């Protein structure tokens, strides 16, 4: 309520600023005139002559010139005296102020402002963690805490995976490193660190990342994540047999109900190795991937784009495929086309809107991509 009162006061003040001069008819000051300036110039010529800047002859010539202008200006200012002005015009201006000002102001403000939001100065807000807060707030709190206590290993351990999940890979890398420094080394942390390094390199297993995976395996030979990514490193280096061998060993050694089995199996199929048990469909036909390896960067880009487009048009006709939608959104994100990703998300939700189960599945997946809400 106070807010609207303040707005009203401000509006009245603004209107007053326009109406005030209108009310003072005739008597309003008429402003200066050029005559004074020329008079001063005449005086200045005398000064200049005295200090020897101009000679006597020039001074005379200049005096004549200025006097001529002075006369003209005096003449002009006689004619320039403003007339009485028309009352209609003033009334018009007053109406513009009375109506136009509030209309312009309110139409802009109502379109842009958020009158219902109060102030939230930090000092008055409680900093207690609360379940309803968005994740980013919690992260900010933990970060602020760690800014002051940089040796809190447990804090870093908690923070690192969240940063990774949020896509802040560089920060995650630092957090994992700090976690290892202050909370001790372990195979899991090394593998996670490697994964974050990969994330910041755009999904490529860099030498740094590989070193971390190797350290992880040195600490625990059975660390699934590290082994999987070492295989991936081999695949990215073009050593498919090595990759296949690594993954086959994982499948052979690992428990039969391990959650990572389908993933490793799919990867194994991708590099052409045979896997025991059921095999989920590969994302791309083998030939295409192999071909992509030999292509130039630009060609590869257009090939990927082509595949994404085909996927998009297929989903337009058959929208039931939740996995497909997720793949599409992810592809757009990777290609940096966030807008398309957003519209694909909207399309997907529309397509599966009638199926509660699929919708839930879709939203789960979108959340993993960092696109919830």
């Amino acid at each position, binding site marked *: 309520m106070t807010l609207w009162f303040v707005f009203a006061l401000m509006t009245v003040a603004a209107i007053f600023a326009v109406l005030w001069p209108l009310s003072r008819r005739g008597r309003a000051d008429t402003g*200066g005139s050029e005559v004074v300036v020329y008079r001063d110039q005449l005086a200045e010529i005398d000064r200049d002559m005295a200090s020897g800047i101009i000679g006597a002859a020039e001074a005379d010539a200049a005096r004549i010139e200025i006097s001529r202008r002075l006369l003209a*200006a005096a003449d002009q200012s006689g004619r320039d005296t403003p007339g009485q*002005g028309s009352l209609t015009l003033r009334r018009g201006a007053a109406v513009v102020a009375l109506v136009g000002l509030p209309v312009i102001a309110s139409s802009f403000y109502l379109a842009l402002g958020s009158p219902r939001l109060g102030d939230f100065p930090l000092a008055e807000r409680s900093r207690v963690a609360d379940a309803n807060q968005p994740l980013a*707030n919690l992260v*900010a709190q933990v970060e602020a805490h760690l800014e002051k206590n940089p040796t809190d290993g447990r804090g870093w351990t908690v923070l690192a995976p969240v940063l990774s999940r949020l896509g802040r890979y560089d920060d995650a890398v630092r957090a994992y490193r700090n976690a290892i420094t202050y909370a001790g080394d372990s195979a899991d942390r090394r593998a996670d660190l490697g994964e974050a390094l990969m994330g910041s390199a755009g999904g490529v297993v860099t030498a740094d990342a590989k070193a971390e995976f190797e350290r992880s395996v040195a600490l625990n030979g059975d660390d699934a994540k590290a082994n999987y990514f070492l295989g991936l490193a081999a695949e990215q280096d073009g050593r498919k047999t090595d990759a296949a061998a690594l993954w086959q060993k994982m499948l052979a050694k690992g428990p039969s109900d391990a959650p990572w089995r389908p993933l490793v199996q799919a990867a194994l199929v991708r590099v052409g190795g045979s896997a025991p048990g059921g095999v989920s469909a590969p994302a791309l036909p083998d030939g295409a991937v192999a071909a992509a390896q030999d292509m130039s960067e630009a060609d590869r880009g257009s090939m990927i784009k082509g595949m994404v487009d085909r996927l998009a048009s297929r989903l337009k006709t058959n929208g039931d495929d939740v996995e497909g939608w997720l793949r599409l959104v992810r592809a757009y994100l990777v290609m940096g086309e966030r807008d398309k990703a957003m519209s694909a998300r909207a399309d997907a939700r529309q397509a599966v809107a009638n199926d509660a189960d699929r919708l839930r599945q879709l939203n789960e997946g979108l959340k993993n991509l960092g696109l919830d809400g």
Partner: protein
Amino acid sequence: MIAESGHYALVLALALALIQSIVPIVGARWRDAALMNVARSTALAQLLFVAASFAALVTLHVTSDFSVANVYENSHSLKPLLYKITGVWGNHEGSMLLWVSILALFGGLVAAFGNNLPLSLRAHVLAVQGWVASAFYLFILITSNPFLRIANPPLEGRDLNPVLQDIGLAVHPPMLYLGYVGFSISFSFAVAALLEGRIDAAWARWVRPWTLMAWIFLTLGIAMGSYWAYYELGWGGWWFWDPVENASLMPWLAGTALLHSALVMEKRNALKVWTVLLSILTFSLSLLGTFLVRSGVLTSVHAFATDPTRGVFILLILFVFIGGSLSLYAWRAPALKQGGLFAPISREGALVLNNLLLTTACATVFIGTLYPLALEVLTGEKISVGAPFFNFTFAPLFVPLLLAVPFGPLLAWKRGDLLGAAQRLMVAGVAALVAMALVFAWTYGGATLAPLAIGLAAFVIMGALCDLAERIALFRIPLSLSLRRARGLPRATWGTAFAHAGLGVALIGIVCETTWNSEYIGSMKPDDVARVAGYQLRLDGLNPRQGPNFREMVAQFTVSRDGEKVSVMTPSKRNFTTRGASTTEAALLTRGASQLYISLGDTSADGAIAVRIYHKPLVLMIWWGPVLMAFGGLLSLSDRRLRVGAPKPAKAAARALQAAE
């Protein structure tokens, strides 16, 4: 409530600016004094509301109200208070708000102190200000609104970038803006003259103080920016011919030309049409400068494309104001009456030469800055135009300009006597030759151009002094009489002498720094000694230190000369742990006008640290020069004659304000 009131105040300012753009023009058309006076009250009210809006944004930043998107994105609760405040204009939205606040400030100043202006001219000028202001309010509200809110406010802001937390970076943008925006007044005067179809010597006298004020701020702003780059970026350079710097240099060059041509117009009623064009061009370059920097076109075409609305709006404003005013000029300028006659050799002639060289120099900077952009847009080819380009084009144009500078004030108006001026400059010429010979002998076998440049600088400085000596007839009449004459000299004359001498001082600094700069780059271990320009710098040791939110490695150097200890220098390298960012804090040791400069690099595995040490002879003169120029401008601004015709203000406060004007 603060946020929303600030937002509403900004909207009201827009509404007032719209009224200010139309009503006074109507009033001038129908000769209605009351309608014309609306310009004045709306300009003052607009200033009030924008100031309130700006104050609101500052308050929001200070209280860390993260429900405002602008605060969330550009502030952080852990920032020191000072940087919370300066962070207000450290981002796009806030800086645009500062821009319009300054625009409103200048409009308000014209409204408050423009008593001596003819009524219709004042109405027109303020109306044109209203157009500019309206366009910018719309731009801010629609594309860069600093008051947009976040419904579910986050608990912490995003920005704590240590590199940007620096006092130099905080102070120099407002200075530059005061300069850029100050030129809007001369622009408004020019457009108003075109609208009225009438321009005369009196016009120039009214424009000059405003132009001078803008020029002073711009000069100081550029100098500050350059000094900031020098001490903060850590590699000792002070001017990089970077597009951002060029964007501020171009309006400065055009504005300097404008100052001089307005002088011709005021005194001799000549060069009218040209002066109007220069006014338009100067502000156009300011607009271009603001926008090139703000839109990010120069740092990345990509940044421009990410926000098409903003980019298109920017182009639209540029197009409307530059295109519109130039069309108006083409249409109305021929109607303006031609001015007085003068011989080529005369004070006018000298000032024309000054204008010619300054605008040409400005044009070369313009080409160098925008050519890569144009080429990329047209052909997709990427090139970079670096320092060599500007050194080859800018310097040759400035040499004749500097040679001519001492002659100008000594020539008479209308018809001058070059020979007489030359004779009077004899002392300066001799001094220049002596300086040249001395420097040449001292640095025998070194650079050949440098002594010549030093001679030129000496000529400029001595020339300015000769002019003064001439006017007070030093040594020709008794000293006491001379002194009395000196007191009686108009302050503008002193101002001219200071500004011109400042040019020479800056040139000495530039030449010395670039020619005789000595450096040592290497890795040092504790107790190692580096020898630079006769100084011995011993690395005493490296000490880690914990700061409020960073750890730093402080290196301590003992500086000695000829075995005698001079001082201790402590450059450091800061590491902001949480963000993983590091900054280099250079250490400076000032000795007279020269400086020793140390910045640190990385520490290697064996405990040695990479060190860069410079000795920069007379480097400070680079910035003393502009300060001297600005001081000269200030003297000239305070000259009573510039304000003559103003009715005596009633209150003492008003008088004080006017003096500061």
